[in-house]
């Protein structure tokens, strides 16, 4: 089941407030703002906790 489009329109990165993109095949939500954090989607539920996000290597 895909995530609701209306939800994706208001969803933002909790860390940098940047736009996010959901890639269903990955079951992940990617921050396209400044921080680039990646949030898991488990069982169609976005896990937006910053502590559980994958952080890009700098």
């Amino acid at each position, binding site marked *: 089941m895909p995530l609701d489009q209306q*939800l994706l329109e*208001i*969803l*933002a990165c909790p*860390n940098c407030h940047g736009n*996010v993109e959901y890639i269903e095949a990955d079951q992940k939500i990617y921050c396209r703002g400044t921080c680039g954090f990646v949030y898991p989607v488990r069982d169609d*539920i*976005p896990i937006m*906790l910053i502590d*559980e996000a994958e952080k890009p290597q700098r």
Partner: protein
Amino acid sequence: MKPMDRKQEIEARFGASADAYAQSPGHRGGPDLDRMVELAAPAPGDDLLDIATGAGNTALAFAPHVRRVVALDMADGMIATTRKRFGEAHLMNADFIVHDAEQLPFEDASFDIVTCRIAPHHFLDVERATHEVFRVLRAGGRYLVEDSAAPRDPTAASFLHDVESRRDATHVRSLTEPEWTALLKRAGFAVAAAEIFPKRHDLEAWLERGGIPEDLKAAIRSDFLAASPAVRRALIVQVDGAHVVSFTDEKVLLKAIRPG
């Protein structure tokens, strides 16, 4: 406490007891929840966010009255329970997200109503959480918040904070009604209503929901029995022989508006 420890603590505390919170008479609903819906005056086109939804009691009460609901909780177990209950109620207008209250994962001005019921006393930074609610509300949007109120009597407040903290390691702090009003105003809100609801707690059921060891329960029972007459009066501690039956604290329900 490190953030990850905190997350684990919350998950352990609430993930396992989701069903207890779904069933608890105090959390499931009552005159305070009815009044919250009434004060919010939900409209069929409204978008609503319920923060720290727990077992979803508040989100479920509002869902039939609004366009859509986003239910947020830090504990996966609570979110799973809430989603299941929405399915059982055949309510399809909800989305579920695992997250905390201090940094909301939404664009500015995304909601018409934000609700948060009997949860802010768990927040590590209630000031920041309140500013975040303001940010995600649209102009004219309503924030309905209800929480355990600290007694105005300082001795009773100190006693209650102590037993609450030992019963529940995730308890941070309850505010008094004037502290709530001041906090909301600092965040930019206009406070439209502040109402008090006495809430009687059966001591044994209250201890049971804490999920704490027997020796700690016994110590808290003894503390209630040994409390000063002033504290017993302020908390309406009811005793039957050597057995504490109940105590009563207050919930404060506030309606705050983001000015247009």
